[in-house]
């Protein structure tokens, strides 16, 4: 599956089917700091993601000042 990441903006490919939380783990990303979006729908970390899915993993933590 195609995965869009931010900070810096890039894409990676990961073999499906796989649960969202396992994809996050594989990328070394913490659940609490990210959202998984399939197409334009939010999914939980339990969701099974398939090879044809377009996935965005969006960071939600901001540094500010």
């Amino acid at each position, binding site marked *: 599956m195609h995965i869009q990441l*931010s*900070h810096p903006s890039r894409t990676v490919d990961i073999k499906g089917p796989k649960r969202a939380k396992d994809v996050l783990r594989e990328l070394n990303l*913490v*659940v*609490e*700091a*990210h*959202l998984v*979006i399939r197409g*334009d*729908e*939010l*999914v*939980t*970390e*339990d*969701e099974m993601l398939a090879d044809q899915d377009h996935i965005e993993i*969006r*960071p*939600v*933590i*901001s*540094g*500010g*000042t």
Partner: protein
Amino acid sequence: MIHSSMNCTKCKTKAVMKLPRHNAAFCKPCFNHFVHDQVEKAIKSQAMFGPDERILVAVSGGKDSLALWHILLALGYHADALYVHLGIAGYSERSYDKVQYYAKMIAAPLGATLHTHTVEQEAGAGIKELAQLVHRPTCSTCGTIKRYQFNRAAIEKEYDVMATGHNLDDEAARLLGNVLHWQEEYLDKQGPSLPASVEGFAKKVKPLYRLTERELAAYCVLNKIDYIVDECPMAQGAKTLLYKEVLNRLETESPGTKQYFYWGFLEKQRKQSATSAPATMAEKDQTILHPCMSCGQPTTAESCSYCKLMARAKSAVPH
């Protein structure tokens, strides 16, 4: 413990968001209900404002402030917004676009207004150039300007209260920083509701202090609120990020850590002020503050820090 049940705790349809700290999972309507309920609880329990008061929301184009404006409007409050255009190349325009789009498509039809203050118009330069001119870090210059302009707009346009999008992660991270360094004087001002201590200072509230960053981002995604995901290129909050990371690791191991930490602090503070009644913040402020000689906003010095900044910037401009 939630196992991989993917159904909404309330209505049993498919869940889109799990909330381990509440031992729950929600579908979109139930999640929205949860978010609105948390904000309503914050407003009521901290006596932030009533249904007839006029609120000025500080918006930046990011998830928290746009979510805040959206939630207040959804709850039926009179909430307008102020955007401070900092003139940061490649960033300010994009974040302003998000704010304007939201204002036009959603806020305006509900009768809400967006005000804009453009730094370059009043100061003659964007925030970066201004900071260089006065030899100060960009973010501290920015902080001075934003604080000043939000307060000024709130007072001049006669809003009852000013609301910012600070969330649970922001407040917990700040509390952790203050506690690690025993910055007791800052602990005083860390509540989600700061009264208008003296004439010329608007009341300030943080209605999102019961919600995490992740919940607010989810709220935006679910409600199709288009916000700027990128951060301001000047952001160097390395310490804040580190504190947030540490707190999120604790949160993952033991859900609820962030809220126990910050809400527990608020509870302690409430009890303390109920028993011992030392000089309240308002009283303390009153003794040291007086009007700035150039603009009239309350300050501890002769001129307020904004007027000093502007004066230094003017004298630094080569003629």
